[in-house]
């Protein structure tokens, strides 16, 4: 006769097992889709990559902001104009700027036109055509992003697989303090920590993984107590 606590453990284990199975199936579908996308990108001819659109910006430096500077904030970096002309601030890796061009690591460039410039003011006109994007670089970036997503999906699927092993064992156990559950729990904890490290050091996942690992050791102690109780008549 199972007591109510074990029945609850079985019930929650069953629910988690079903949820993790659904999530696992989604991961597999996503994985297949991403693999197809990876292959499609690898074999995509460069002339099929077509970008259209224009970038158009004007930086006007007046007497008021001549010293502090004014500019365009792109989120990652700023194109700033002040009394010394144009410069890049922020994450400017690979970006170079000169009198008539802003070059983004050879991937794309903006043409700079000095409309007017005198002692107290200056106006710069920046224009760029998206069609000028280096298609090889675009393809590489695209492939990198999709590969990154593929690895993330694989890691999630592996974690879910090990999670489900624990849930399945808990769904039908008579007592959770068995060697089988302890082992599966420790492995799941380890995998979860690995997943946290892999997904750009996700602290929440790492701490959760450590908690599962710790519970594994708590259950190992519980298993010893269970054995002692079982051997007592």
């Amino acid at each position, binding site marked *: 006769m199972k007591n109510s606590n074990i029945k609850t453990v079985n019930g929650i284990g069953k629910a988690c097992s079903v949820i993790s199975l659904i999530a696992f199936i989604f991961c597999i579908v996503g994985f297949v889709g991403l693999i197809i996308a990876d292959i499609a990108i690898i074999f995509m001819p460069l002339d099929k990559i077509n970008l259209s659109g224009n970038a158009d910006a004007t930086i006007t430096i007046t007497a008021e902001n001549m010293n502090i500077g004014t500019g365009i904030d792109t989120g990652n970096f700023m194109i700033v104009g002040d009394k010394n002309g144009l410069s890049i601030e922020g994450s400017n890796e690979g970006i170079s700027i000169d009198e008539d061009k802003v070059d983004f690591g050879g991937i794309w460039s903006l043409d700079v036109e000095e409309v007017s410039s005198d002692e107290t003011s200056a106006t710069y006109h920046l224009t760029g055509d998206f069609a000028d994007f280096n298609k090889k670089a675009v393809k590489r970036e695209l492939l990198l992003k999709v590969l990154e997503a593929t690895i993330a999906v694989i890691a999630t699927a592996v974690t879910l697989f090990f999670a489900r092993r624990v849930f399945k064992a808990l769904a039908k156990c008579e007592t959770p303090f068995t060697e089988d559950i302890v082992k599966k729990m420790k492995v799941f904890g380890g995998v979860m920590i690995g997943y946290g490290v892999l997904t750009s050091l996700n602290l929440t996942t790492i701490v959760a993984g450590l908690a599962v690992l710790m519970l594994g050791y708590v259950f190992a102690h519980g298993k010893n107590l269970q054995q*002692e109780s079982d*051997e*007592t*008549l």
Partner: protein
Amino acid sequence: MSIILRLDRVMADRKMSLNELSERVGVSNVNLSKLKTGKVSAIRFSTLEAICKTLNCQPGDLLEFIDDGGKELADNQ
């Protein structure tokens, strides 16, 4: 283990079968068998009491200590 259970000896003295003892003590056949063969590591006072009551004996009649140097006890610590 240096503590030996002499349940089989007392049962033979009282001419009581394992099944009868099991029924009267309320401990399953399998568990009594384990007790007889010394495959348990501990016994509850309540179980000991029930067995003593049924077999009309003292705990000392059931348990025997043989000094084997306490090797196992030392191993467990």
